[in-house]
């Protein structure tokens, strides 16, 4: 409640600015068209036209809302024009990539925390790996995987995994290292084995960090999937939707796809937040 009012106010302000911007940005085209048709526009007429164009430079909020509504609820969800259908395709690749990335991140982190050689070898390159413009070579990655017989959802998922493993790795390394010397010494004083230290101390101690990075990772995975779908000849998914909208100059379609992606991202982060709450509550870590 305490945040609802401020958030609504800010949202309202954003929408207002958006309308003004839409009028300003679409006015050129409206004037040009009027000039070509040799008519002069009244101000009211100009505003009306800028907010109802088919190919606006910036669609008005209500146009986007309508496009979104149409896409989400305007048709059967199995229809290729349904954003739910495309969202589902993007979601499945995102989840696959997220799972692969999370697993890889956790395994690497476990290795790094337990082996100094691995820490010193892998960590610097893990940082460098993130400056590889994987998104730029997404189409190539997809072709290369296709040549190895891997097609369909998996190549996209691998791009998603590449982006999502890093936050998990960093968070998990930090988390697995949170137990302080005292807690480790306690374990030692009990003569606990390495496995016992891991399962009973390091892992539970790392969970809050894990969840924090999972939220980042899932958003990153979604970005990866969408970009994997974007120019790489993907035929379905929100990225493909964005691309084809762009290809045919359907700005409303682009924005609707963008918002659908935004909603999907928010949902994913929320779901992880929910799981986090449940798990941490069960562990007595949420107060």
């Amino acid at each position: 409640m305490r945040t609802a009012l401020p958030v609504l106010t800010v949202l309202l302000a954003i929408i207002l600015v958006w309308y003004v911007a839409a009028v300003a940005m679409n006015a050129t085209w409206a004037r040009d068209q009027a000039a070509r048709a040799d008519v002069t526009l009244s101000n009211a007429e100009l505003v009306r036209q800028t907010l109802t164009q088919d190919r606006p430079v910036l669609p008005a909020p209500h146009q986007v809302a309508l496009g979104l509504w149409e896409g989400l609820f305007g048709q059967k969800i199995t229809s290729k024009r349904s954003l739910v259908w495309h969202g589902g395709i993007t979601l499945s690749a995102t989840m696959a990539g997220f799972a692969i990335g999370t697993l890889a991140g956790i395994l690497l982190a476990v290795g790094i925390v337990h082996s100094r050689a691995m820490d010193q070898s892998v960590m610097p390159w893990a940082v460098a790996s993130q400056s590889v413009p994987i998104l730029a070579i997404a189409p190539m990655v997809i072709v290369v995987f296709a040549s190895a017989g891997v097609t369909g959802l998996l190549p996209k998922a691998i791009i998603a995994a590449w982006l999502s493993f890093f936050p998990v790795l960093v968070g998990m390394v930090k988390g697995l290292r949170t137990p302080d010397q005292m807690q480790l010494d306690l374990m030692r004083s009990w003569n606990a084995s390495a496995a016992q230290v891991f399962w009973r101390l390091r892992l539970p101690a790392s969970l809050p960090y894990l969840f924090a990075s999972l939220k980042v990772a899932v958003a990153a995975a979604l970005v990866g999937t969408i970009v994997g779908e974007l120019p790489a000849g993907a035929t379905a998914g929100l990225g493909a939707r964005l691309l084809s909208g762009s290809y045919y100059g359907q700005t409303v379609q682009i924005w609707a796809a963008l918002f659908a992606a935004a909603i999907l991202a928010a949902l994913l982060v929320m779901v992880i937040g929910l799981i986090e709450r449940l798990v941490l509550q069960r562990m007595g870590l949420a107060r």
Partner: protein
Amino acid sequence: EGELTLQLKWVTQAQFAGYYVALDKGFYEEEGLDVTILPGGPDIAPTQVLAGGGADVIVEWMPAALAAREKGLPLVNIAQPFKRSGMMLTCLKESGITDPKTDFAGKTLGVWFSGNEYPFLSWMNHLGLSTEGGAEGVTVLKQGFNVDPLLQKQAACISTMTYNEYGQVLDAGLTPEDLVTFKYEDQGVATLEDGLYVLESTLEDPAMVDSLVQFVRASMKGWDYAAQNPEEAAEIVLDNDETGAQTMDHQLRMVQEIAKLTEGSTGALDEADYQRTVDTLLSGGSDPVISAAPEGAFSHVVTERAVE
């Protein structure tokens, strides 16, 4: 029995109506073929997919194919359903361009890349225009996915296909009177577009050649059917478009425009057309697309048997 994978050059649209019709109407099946069609995209290089083994046959433009051949990838043209070129430069009349020879200098032109730039580069070479910008040359933009640069006046001219982007410019609200177009055909720099290419090694396998013969035969049947039944063809393309973004109007017009390009083709490559393409590409001045006339870049084995 025979399995074939076809990699398209671009996204699912009526440009490839023949293949989709053949698939949908069961022409491939009749030949005993199991064909998979992979849509392309702006940054899919079909040649790379072919080299990687991701496809058996690709749809590609000849300049790109010959360039790849010179890079050491032994591509062979086995059929050429597109007889004519649909490529052109579309300019805003208000930019004051009337004659390419005199008016391009100092202007900004939109061009497609990723292997689609070769015909344009050849043309500029013909005109003796540098593509490095400046008052004496042209400034080249890597054109994105749509016709916005023209609408937003970011370029004086943009690349368009007769069957596709030109229509989009009109859809956006401009009229033919607002525009000036220069077809590559008319400028004498036309190069062959959508042909079917395979690797040399594929042709050494008799079983594969059999499959290719069946494939080309069925595909040409598809093209014929599409030309005769434009509405149904457009419908089929729409069904196969997974993005759900295409519209009937647009695809119908595309089928009709494409029919003008395939008209008169049996599928067999006309060697005169081939020679004209090679000459255009070779006469590139300082930076030709290919440096020597290719050898064995096409083969009639498949079409000889398919056409009979």
